[in-house]
């Protein structure tokens, strides 16, 4: 700046930085002219230059810069003329140095000395003093003629000034009137996160249940559910919004690129998102560039996984021994079992044969920085994940770029984000584990190791295979079946904001996403399937799918503060979202060689010979969502808060009679701590009461359900030729509409003792017009089911969160967070005068012979989701057969004598209570954090045990306990039955993650932290299966299936390096 006054220069510095100046205008001459270049220099150098050749001294205290005249010994003494003095202390009475004391409305002021004392002169008697200090609440005190004013500063409660995303905007936490949980990157789970970014929140947010039900499968995702099950057959998971864009691809966001995750829990917060918001909304904000020199961060970790709890099956030798003992037994039952067992002379640990010690690695590199006008953030990440089961795995490479342009007058902001990922994955075939657990351990893996007395049914093949019902060699299942999926996903958005007038901003957020997946599948010619199941002689298929989403959301906001007390913010907007899904697939069979796998479909001969009905197929569908929305936030004196929103939204999926709907919400807040009568309650820093009500929708069903259409189907022999036909595809329902959920929420947020934050929320959700596919009579309907809106469901609950920093010393600190939630679910109704279900049976027990048609879950009106319905175990009979109680408990009967009427609700698979307890300790350069997670008041149906913990399961392999357990080993029944004997309490408390880190002081980098971490280290539970963390979404929760990918323990080593 050339020839500017010092005052102008100081103004410029204040505008561009966080520093502000304090000086006595009577003493310091700021009208002198200077010439300086202040660009890209640090503050010290700038100031040196500004004041060079003047008599002005400066002193930097935190963000304040105090100016004084050099011939005075100190700034403070220069102001000592007449008389207001006092002492400033903190809430415990200790003197507080460095507190800024100014006369309100001027820049005249001082700071307290190191004893907390201050002194001001020349003060008008009607003046008001402002006391401010970082981390303390600013206090205003009127002088009223006093000459001594001593005050105790109150620490500002942590968090109320935090900014929280609320959907189409942000808001200070202290002003929020709905139930929103916000987790910043500092509070994320510290260990390895590899299935979904939402694992970062595991056990952190009350009401958000997260379950790794897919165990160690690198291609599974975590399940998450907010405030219980709100829908029967519509979407059950929250809406994901990434950087303001609805429906982003969660799995392609690297956890390292996430800044904060905000969870809109209640209806009043979520209603602004209309028909997609019933299950809550999760807003993910990614990292953006910040002003400053480039910052380079590199983090990498490697982890290894092992069985959480490897089942103990009979070894080959034990199996042989068992055969001998049983065959020689006096017990006819055992004799027969012994007789059925075959000795193939080998010794194979099938679980070892299909698994490995998986080793995976993850790398993230990011660069960020920028100037006031252009900020950038770019990252590159790579992950190579191996699954515990051989061949399963995922490799993913991705990059993210974010640019933010801000015009100099800050009226215009343009932000662009793009995210690309390329993924190759090898999915898990659930039959592998099933077969490994079942297969006779005396069978060798390969034909070459086979004893000459054994005749395999494929003597020329590599793997020992036998014909028979569903018994492929599990290692063959891994090696002879190729499953390769490749996905590339792009998501990008551009967000433009322009301040038209002061407080009036127009903006538009446009997004485009595309995900392409190409899959390849091949079954070898001598695989079990080819030999004994479909006789295809090698089968190959390929498919290519593309899903595309576009959205554009223009908004206009106006915000202003009127008369210092009325704060108003108004938002209006329009949203257009479109989804297109396209698919193409082809298959062929009967190949001459396995060499081509799926790469040359034309080489097969099944298409030519005409045995394939549909060798090629393609499909395309689309749907649209259009809405208009608005919101008003108003606060009076920052004490009485009000927020109201309305979304008018229509979806193409719904019937012509019901395209459009309205979703409204209102919430109020009362900051009680601002009231005068609360001023004396010194330990309360902030206290706010919230009450909200909101209506949201669920449109999670497929397209075209309301429309009449014809599909190709069936053939007929017509005049000596086969011709294909067209048939209506479904029963159209032109009345089809969204599910509607009304939710009220009462909450209170309290901050106290400077470091304790407490939140309690009570909610009541009522979903009506539940979407369900109803059975209808044929005729007059064409199909026996129609999608309709009928039932009603209720969820009520309470959420409790407390976070605190019990210790904060310079060397040692401790932060904790404890949260708990309780939810009560009830399916109120599933019927009306037209559609009628008193109950439905679900959860068919597949996987074992003779179990088809055995349903074990009952969905019933007036009852919660997840009721397990079975006979009650009544002990074993004298001849060691299963017995169950008849309906009125008068008689013990064998299950084959028992009927449906004798079954009862014997448990429920939905956890009612979730608990999370997280702790972080730091000591010098060490840090330690751990998270406990627990789910309580639920039962697991152990279908694994139903089928297998039974001597009668021989000659398949069994668990060792079947012959050692004093009770089970005595059972002499060929089969097992679904009784409450196998319904076990699932309650658990687990050490979800534990991380120990050390920051190594180095010269070449700003930070170098190394850490070791463990995940799923131990579980306290009575459950006799593996890990009780089971599936919690859906209508058959906590069904422990014998096909599931094994649960794992994970150990991680990693480091983070910041330059």
């Amino acid at each position, binding site marked *: 700046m050339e020839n500017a006054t010092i005052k102008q220069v100081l103004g410029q510095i204040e505008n561009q930085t966080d520093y502000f100046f304090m000086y006595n205008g009577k003493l310091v001459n700021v009208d002198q002219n200077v010439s300086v270049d202040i660009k890209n220099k640090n503050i010290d150098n700038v100031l040196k230059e500004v004041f060079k050749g003047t008599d002005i001294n400066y002193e930097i205290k935190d963000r304040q810069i105090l100016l004084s005249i050099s011939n005075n010994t100190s700034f403070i003494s220069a102001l000592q003329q007449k008389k207001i003095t006092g002492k400033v202390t903190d809430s415990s009475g200790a003197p507080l140095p460095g507190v800024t004391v100014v006369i309100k409305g001027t820049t005249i002021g001082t700071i307290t000395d190191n004893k907390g004392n201050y002194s001001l002169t020349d003060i008008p008697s009607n003046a008001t003093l402002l006391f401010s200090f970082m981390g303390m609440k600013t206090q205003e005190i009127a002088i009223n003629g006093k000459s001594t004013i001593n005050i105790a500063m109150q620490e500002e409660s942590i968090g109320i000034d935090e900014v929280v995303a609320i959907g189409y905007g942000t808001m200070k936490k202290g002003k929020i009137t709905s139930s929103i949980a916000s987790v910043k990157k500092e509070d994320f789970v510290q260990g390895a996160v590899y299935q979904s970014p939402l694992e970062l929140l595991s056990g952190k947010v009350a009401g958000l249940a997260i379950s790794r039900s897919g165990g160690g499968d690198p291609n599974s995702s975590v399940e998450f559910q907010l405030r219980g099950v709100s829908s029967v057959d519509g979407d059950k998971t929250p809406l994901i919004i990434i950087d303001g864009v609805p429906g982003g691809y969660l799995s392609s966001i690297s956890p390292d690129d996430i800044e904060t995750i905000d969870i809109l829990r209640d209806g009043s917060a979520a209603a602004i998102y209309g028909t997609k918001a019933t299950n809550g909304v999760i807003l993910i904000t990614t990292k953006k560039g910040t002003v400053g020199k480039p910052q380079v961060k590199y983090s990498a970790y490697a982890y290894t996984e092992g069985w959480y709890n490897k089942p103990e099956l009979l070894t080959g030798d034990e199996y042989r021994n068992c055969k001998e003992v049983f065959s020689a037994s006096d017990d*006819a039952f055992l004799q027969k079992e012994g007789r059925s*067992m*075959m000795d193939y002379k080998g010794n194979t640990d099938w679980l070892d044969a299909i698994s490995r010690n998986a080793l995976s690695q993850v790398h993230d590199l990011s660069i960020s920085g920028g100037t006031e006008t252009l900020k950038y953030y770019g990252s590159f990440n790579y992950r190579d994940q191996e699954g515990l089961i051989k061949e399963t795995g995922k490799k993913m490479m991705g990059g993210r770029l974010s640019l933010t342009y801000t*015009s*100099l007058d800050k009226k*215009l902001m*343009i932000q662009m984000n793009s995210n690309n990922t390329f993924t190759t994955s090898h999915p898990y075939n659930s039959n592998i584990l099933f077969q490994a657990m079942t297969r006779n351990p005396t069978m060798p893996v390969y034909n070459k190791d086979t004893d000459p007395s054994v005749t395999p049914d494929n003597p020329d093949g590599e793997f020992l295979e036998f*014909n*028979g*019902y569903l018994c492929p060699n599990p290692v063959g299942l891994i090696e002879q079946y190729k499953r390769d999926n490749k996905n590339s996903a792009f998501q990008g958005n551009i967000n433009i904001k322009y301040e038209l007038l002061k407080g009036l901003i127009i903006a538009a957020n*446009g997004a485009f996403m595309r995900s392409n997946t190409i899959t390849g599948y091949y079954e070898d010619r001598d695989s079990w399937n080819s030999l*004994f*199941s479909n*006789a*295809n002689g090698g089968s190959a298929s390929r498919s290519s799918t593309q899903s595309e989403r576009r959205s*554009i959301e*223009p908004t206009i906001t106006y915000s202003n503060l009127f008369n210092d007390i009325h704060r108003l913010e108004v938002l209006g907007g329009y949203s257009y979202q479109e989804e297109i899904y396209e698919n193409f697939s082809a298959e062929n*069979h009967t190949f001459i060689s396995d060499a081509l796998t799926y790469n040359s479909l034309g080489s097969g001969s099944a298409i030519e*010979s*005409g045995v*394939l*009905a549909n060798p090629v197929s393609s*499909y*395309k569908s*689309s*749907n*649209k969502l*259009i809405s208009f929305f608005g919101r008003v936030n108003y606060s009076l004196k920052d004490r009485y808060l009000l927020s109201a929103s309305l979304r008018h939204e*229509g979806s193409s999926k719904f019937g012509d009679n019901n395209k*459009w709907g309205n979703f409204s919400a209102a919430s109020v807040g009362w900051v009680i701590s601002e009231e005068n009568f609360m001023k004396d309650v010194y330990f309360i820093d902030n206290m706010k009461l919230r009450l909200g009500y909101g209506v949201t929708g669920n449109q999670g069903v497929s397209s075209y359900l*309301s*429309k*009449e259409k*014809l*599909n190709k189907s*069936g*053939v*007929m*022999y017509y005049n*000596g030729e086969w*011709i294909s*036909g*067209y*048939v*209506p595809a479904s029963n159209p329902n032109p009345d089809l509409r969204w599910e509607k959920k009304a939710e009220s929420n009462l909450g209170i947020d309290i901050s106290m003792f400077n470091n304790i934050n407490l939140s309690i929320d009570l909610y009541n959700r009522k979903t009506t017009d539940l979407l369900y596919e109803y*059975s209808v*009579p044929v*005729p*007059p309907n064409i199909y*026996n089911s129609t999608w309709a809106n009928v039932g009603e469901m209720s969820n009520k609950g309470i959420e409790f969160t407390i976070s605190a920093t019990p210790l904060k010393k310079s060397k040692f600190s401790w932060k904790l967070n404890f949260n708990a939630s309780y939810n009560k679910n009830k399916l109120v109704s599933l019927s009306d005068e037209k559609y009628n279900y008193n109950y439905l049976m679900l959860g068919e027990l597949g996987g074992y*012979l*003779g*179990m088809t*048609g*055995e349903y074990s879950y009952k969905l019933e009106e007036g009852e919660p989701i997840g009721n397990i319905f079975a006979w009650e175990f009544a002990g074993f009979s004298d001849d060691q057969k299963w017995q169950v109680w008849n309906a009125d408990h008068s008689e013990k009967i064998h299950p084959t004598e028992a*009927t449906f009427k004798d079954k009862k609700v014997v448990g429920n698979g939905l956890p009612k209570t979730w608990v999370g307890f997280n702790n972080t300790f730091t000591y010098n350069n060490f840090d330690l954090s751990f998270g406990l997670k627990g789910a309580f008041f639920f039962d697991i149906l152990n279908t694994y045990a139903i089928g297998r913990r039974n001597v*009668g399961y021989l*000659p398949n392999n069994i668990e060792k306990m079947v012959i050692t357990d004093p009770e089970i080993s005595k059972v002499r029944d*060929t*089969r097992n039955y679904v009784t409450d004997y196998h319904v076990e309490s699932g309650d658990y408390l687990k050490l979800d993650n534990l991380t120990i880190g050390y920051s190594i002081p180095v010269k070449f980098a700003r930070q170098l932290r190394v850490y070791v971490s463990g995940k799923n280290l131990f579980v306290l539970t009575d459950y006799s299966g593996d890990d009780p963390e089971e599936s919690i979404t859906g209508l058959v929760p906590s069904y422990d299936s014998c096909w599931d990918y094994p649960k794992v323990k994970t150990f991680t080593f990693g480091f983070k390096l910041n330059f």
Partner: protein
Amino acid sequence: MKRLLNKLSFILIVIFILPVFNSCTDLDEDVYSSIVPENFYKTEDELIAAMVPAYSDLCWMIRNRGVPDCEAYTSDIMIIPTRDYGGWYDGGRYQQLFEHTWTSENSCMDNMWSRTFNWVDKANMLIYQFSQVDNMDPDLKTKFTSELSIIRAFAYYNLLNTFGNVPIVDRFDVPEGFTPKNNTDFEAGRKEVFEFIEKDLLDNIPNLTETVDESTSGRFNKYAAMMILVKLYMNAEVWTGIPRWDDAITYADKIINSGNYQLEADYFANFKVENKDSKENIFVLPFNATISSLGWAYTSYLYRMHHHFLSAGIFGVSLGGQNGPAALPSFIHSFDSQDIRLKGWSIGLQLNKSTGDTIFCNKTYSGKPLNYTIDYVDIYDPTDETVYDYKNAPEYAGARFSKYEIAFADGTNMSNDYVVYRYADVLLLKAEALMRKHGGMATEEAVNLVNQIHKRAFEDPSLHLYTTNTFTMEELLAERARELYYEGMRRNDLIRFDKFAQGEWEKEWYDRSSQGDEKNWYPIPQTQMNANISLTQNPGY
């Protein structure tokens, strides 16, 4: 520069939004992969394609434990036993069929109901659809409409046979809010259904073709439709209380006298892979192994369900079976050992077709030769005192159904047409009607009719001829079983002979003697009672 940028951004936002506002509130659905009805039913090809579902759904008759299966497994000829390794228990649903203890929850009930009503619905829909098309050839329209009415009558015949009092729906364009209702009085309702079928058949038979050749194979020509009428009249006494023996004989004679049908010299010619040219088969569900949309489920019901897991080698086909249904011991024992028709059952030691090697068990009798026994006993350990019966059958127990030739054309399917109505049945039914009119005593004419069939079953026919003295109603019922086993009518026969409800077969396994007459009809499935609250459940359930 700054101004320019600001202006530019404003323009950008406008450009961004403009295209959207064009279609601002347009929520019409774009359908890409299906045809919307407005664009269909225009050309003759499309009209024929529209006709397909009416027939293609008929093949569901034998899938999914439908009517023919339940006719057998509830009767004295066959059963799906629960195996000693637990297979085929499946909630006890098959044991219930054997015991006659089924409930409305048994999924077989719904299979029978929904498959059959589906035919009614398709027929109604297409009759309506064709009535709406004005550019259709009038002859084709009449022919199609009458065929569709016959399909509907065939469906209602099956419903009358199984559930009795079912709701009659004879149109597609029902008024808003219409729900099908059955008569609240079972007997009256059953009579209404009977009369509805009779009228539909009599009204439409004149419009059907008399041609019997490849071009009408698998479709209802005049004689196939008359066969429904014969069977309807044969059971008239059971369903309406009024015997109609003369009407049955009249229509049986029309089929016999048409000269289009004759008995094949070889009983098994009707069931071989190439059974399209059988002169004996009147109505078949055509199959072709290379049309795989027909295939697997069909193969499964004629072969794979019945045979052992390791049976692929026995027949030289690529796939093994699932070890399900088997014959009841007493039924196999009822055959004369010389009866050729006994060869339709696999009994005894099973060998590999090409190598002659023994096939072995692989479940509870792993390593033991697979030897299908007629009785359910432990043949490998005579000292075993375990009770083997329908709840606990050794993996090898029971004769297996092999009447249809088992050979896979190409890949995994069979091409045999499934026989619904056959000339032999016409002869047996006529003989029965004659005897019924004669006070249940044999007549010369009746014995001659039956002997045509009976002598075919023996190498030396002269030794095995019935006379008016040896031929009784009892013998007729038994002969029907031996001739027509697993052809989807055994339960119906037993009910007509009043031998079903308290059926006495395999009494030592399960005693049905104290059961009521309601066993002569099935309960309306619970799923349907749920789907339609206007239905009245059948008496006794």
